[in-house]
């Protein structure tokens, strides 16, 4: 189902949770809301579900205005970060509950519950109570309940955040497949850029109650249209610096410069911002060479993350393999100037070909 937010905003008391937002999601799409805590992901979902009434603006579904229609009458399902199931119902009754309320015949309910219990590997525990299940099984039950009724709009609010690492990976793989054939519009909220990239589909990056950018996940990762969007979609945070553009060259300072791409070369001279993702700043290799002082170095698995002070900017370098550094050590880092994103004085992206 197509869902459309037209100039929707949400204010509670004096606090603005969502600034005026326009967003249009197509049927069968897997959409991701990406943003940090308090960026408005949950508020936006609650608006889409109808649990919150927008302060202004309208919500349209399939070309119909649904702003004032109660949630019971909408075809919406939602899964929360906390595992929400009906504690007094068995797993079977939990999954069957939306179908029972809809008044479906008993054998059809039975068939559909079995189908989704199989899909989510819940068949052996159908007669247990939610409290007797592990966290992963509880969340599977909640997912099954959201799937079983075949809602047109399925909202998943960080559904995997409370699960352990292994289960998360497993479910993250399965999730898009589960929804692939349902034709439902799925909205998935997450605070992890990496998770968004793995899930694919479309992404809306959110920051402080505003949708910063919306588009295909991979393209908005590669081409964030503003510095803000680039910041949201990068973890560890994207490295930024101010450069001075003169002719065909970009100067980080007097000693570090490189040739700018054609698009930027045709822009007027002056100050620009650059964004460079941490994994493009490496302790060895070739390209533009910068000197920096190591401030923090940590090793997470096979990655080394170093915080370095480069030409007065606090940058992060993320490199494969184990690199050991002394605190305060002065050494060189390299980056490929083609990897730089350039932003003008309004923090808007200067289009470049990658």
């Amino acid at each position, binding site marked *: 189902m197509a869902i459309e937010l037209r100039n929707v905003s949400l204010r509670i008391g004096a606090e603005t949770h969502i600034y005026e937002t326009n967003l249009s999601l197509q049927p069968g799409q897997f959409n991701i809301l990406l943003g940090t805590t308090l960026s408005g992901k949950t508020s936006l979902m609650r608006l889409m579900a109808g649990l919150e009434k927008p302060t202004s603006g309208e919500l349209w579904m399939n070309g119909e205005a649904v702003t004032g229609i109660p949630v019971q009458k909408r075809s919406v399902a939602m899964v929360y970060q906390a595992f929400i199931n*009906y504690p007094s119902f068995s797993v079977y009754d939990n999954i069957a509950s939306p179908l029972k309320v809809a008044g479906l015949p008993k054998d059809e309910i039975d068939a559909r519950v079995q189908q989704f219990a199989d899909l989510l590997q819940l068949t052996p525990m159908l007669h247990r109570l939610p409290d007797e299940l592990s966290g992963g099984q509880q969340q599977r039950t909640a997912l099954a309940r959201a799937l079983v*009724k075949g809602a047109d709009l399925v909202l998943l609010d960080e559904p995997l955040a409370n699960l352990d690492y292994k289960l998360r990976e497993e479910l993250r793989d399965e999730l898009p497949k589960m929804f692939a054939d349902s034709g439902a519009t799925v909205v998935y909220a997450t605070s992890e850029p990496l998770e968004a990239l793995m899930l694919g589909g479309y992404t809306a990056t959110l920051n402080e109650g505003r949708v910063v950018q919306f588009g295909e996940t991979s393209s908005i990762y590669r081409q964030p249209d503003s510095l803000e969007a680039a910041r949201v979609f990068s973890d560890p945070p994207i490295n930024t610096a101010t450069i001075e553009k003169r002719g065909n060259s970009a100067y980080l300072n007097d000693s570090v410069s490189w040739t700018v791409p054609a698009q930027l070369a045709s822009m007027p001279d002056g100050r620009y911002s650059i964004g460079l993702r941490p994994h493009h700043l490496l302790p060895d290799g070739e390209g533009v060479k910068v000197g920096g002082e190591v401030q923090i170095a940590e090793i997470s698995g096979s990655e080394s993350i170093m915080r370095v002070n480069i030409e007065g900017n606090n940058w992060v370098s993320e490199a494969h393999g184990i690199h050991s550094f002394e605190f305060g050590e002065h050494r060189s880092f390299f980056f490929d100037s083609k990897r730089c994103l350039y932003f003008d004085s309004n923090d808007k992206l200067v289009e470049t070909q990658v």
Partner: protein
Amino acid sequence: MNKKWILPSLYILFLMLPIYGLLSMSFKTTNEILGGFSLFPQNFTLENYIKIFTDPTWYNGYINSLIYVCLNTVISVSVALPAAYAFSRYRFLGDKHLFFWLLTNRMAPPAVFALPFFQLYSAIELFDTHLAVALAHCLFNIPLAVWILEGFMSGIPKELDETAYLDGYSFWRFFIRIFIPTIAAGIGVAAFFCFMYSWVELLLAKTLTSVDAKPIAAIMTRTASTSGYELGLLAAAGSLTIIPGAFVIYFVRNYIAKGFALGRV
């Protein structure tokens, strides 16, 4: 026996002493009780109990008490459920003040209300009915039930309500089919406390009844004053009043610990 059990055992023994005294007295004749102290009944008799179970003025007292106590428990809990839900789920002007004000009702001594209640119930011909006592006890029990239930309800995430609405449940269907079973423990605890307060309350129950709805405690005091000191009979009647409470406690014993954990009991 482990050493750590000594102190609790002594404490329990100390607590049980008066109850044992009452039980042992209930099997004695009044003359033996007046004759001096003895640990065990010398002339074991069931006479006191037989009298209570055969004399309608006695056993009706129990029936009357049970009727208005049960009536009160049902009214209190069913009225408190939606009220507690509102306090736990909605924010409205003065909600916290109103919640506290409810509690202050419990601070007022029953004697303050006895006379106005007496006059009001006489005027509307509710005097000497079970409903009169049940309603009067609501004054203390509804705030208590709201307070206890609100604690239990606030422990249930609001997302449960929302999930039910998204599943298509109407409010009342959700409330009855899902919410009430979820807070069954809280309802058990609230009902227990309503039952106990109503069961032991004497002043209002005595003032608002004369014959038809007279509670057992009032019958006990009257008997003592008209036919001298029938201590054996009184002890038997007293022993019997312990039974309903013990019975109710048996059913909610596991839930009460949960109530204590929430700090609401």
